[in-house]
């Protein structure tokens, strides 16, 4: 089993003068599923973006450890898979072209067999050569899961993972998470009860709103 750890050290985030959350300290270890909950505007997307190194915290630090070794942020993107409603793929390319370009730009070998497997799992194999401009929002959401998993990341961050998905799509997502829960570290930011039911531990951001924390 891979040993991947994310440590949040005194994380504070302000947008202008508005406090989003204050003084979050937490440790996430692989082999677990963690949930981040809170009402709309509580900072769920903000904290997962900070964990994925997409935005900086106002104060504090996020440390990613692969075993005992701290991962350099220049290489961090290869350890992370990310799914969110505000993530967009290149809609002038086909699903397959997107996946090939993502692998090549990441500098990893494109695993055709694994790509075909994931496309079949998410029921997109027959549409793999269609430009994704013509995909429905549910199909695009399923493709985002393939984008997040194609490079076999150790940390998978799911921000509202089941938005736009129908019942079979949601079931497939839960099945994939359950299948990989022992090998990867999952962090799920969501308001959906069914999403949060998967999590062993849930952080409620409402508990980190006090500036005196």
């Amino acid at each position: 089993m891979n040993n991947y750890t994310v440590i949040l050290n005194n994380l504070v985030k302000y947008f202008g003068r508005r406090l989003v959350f204050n003084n979050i300290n937490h440790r996430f270890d692989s082999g677990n599923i963690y949930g981040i909950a809170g009402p709309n505007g509580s900072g769920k997307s903000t904290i997962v973006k900070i964990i994925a190194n997409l935005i900086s915290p106002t104060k504090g630090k996020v440390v990613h450890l692969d075993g005992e070794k701290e991962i350099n942020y220049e290489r961090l993107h290869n350890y992370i898979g990310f799914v969110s409603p505000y993530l967009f793929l290149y809609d002038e390319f086909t699903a397959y072209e997107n996946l090939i370009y993502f692998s090549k730009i990441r500098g990893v070998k494109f695993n055709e067999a694994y790509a075909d497997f994931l496309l079949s799992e998410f029921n997109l194999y027959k549409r793999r050569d269609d430009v994704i401009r013509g995909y429905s929002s549910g199909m695009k959401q399923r493709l985002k899961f393939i984008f997040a998993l194609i490079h076999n990341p150790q940390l998978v961050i799911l921000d509202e993972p089941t938005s736009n998905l129908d019942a079979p799509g949601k079931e497939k997502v839960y099945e994939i998470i359950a299948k990989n829960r022992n090998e990867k570290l999952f962090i799920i930011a969501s308001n959906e009860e069914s999403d949060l039911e998967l999590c062993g531990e849930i952080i409620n951001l409402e508990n980190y709103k006090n500036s005196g924390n």
Partner: protein
Amino acid sequence: MKAYHLFKKDWESELRTRYALNALSMFILVTISVIMFSIGSEKITEYLTGGLLWVVIFFSAMSGLSRAFVSEEERGTTLTLHLIASPSTIFSGKLLYNLILVFLMNFAITFLFMILFESFIIKNLLLFLIAFLLGNVGIAVSSTIIAAIISKASSKGTLYPVLSFPILLPLILVLLELTKFAMDGNSVVESMTEILVLVSYDVIMTTASYLLFDFIWKE
């Protein structure tokens, strides 16, 4: 190689959408047509033609080169890029894309000037080629980092020329001088000071851009 694949993705995307290529081609054709109509049958001096060449190049760069980052921001794919590549790979890939675009654009503009303007006569072709090469690199590097800065702003259209003007002005002034020397037939050795200024500009802009890009790229 990662940067090359990012460039390839951008180039393939451009060939499918043709946004920058169409904008640049139309801008070049319209600008040169307007200059020709305004000149009419008047004879203009060699120096003025050389100046007009760099004016057209400067404004063409304004119209097309910002697309490298602005298109990612407009399509919402900036986050995707963050998740697949390191900042240095992204900057290198975008720079390569803008370099190819600048060279294509400037070859086309220079070729049109050569066939359309009688007074565009270069006596020292080697000196002009050196200036052309170093100038294109300078324009591409500056435009790429400015495009990265403005892609985060809300008023992208107005900010690009405003930011570009002070950054590209020293470069354009030296290029105007070197084009004048090439038209006069001055040797490369005689123009060494200006060439070294161009080399310095390119090195400083490239180094500063790589150092600054991390801060610009991450919100």
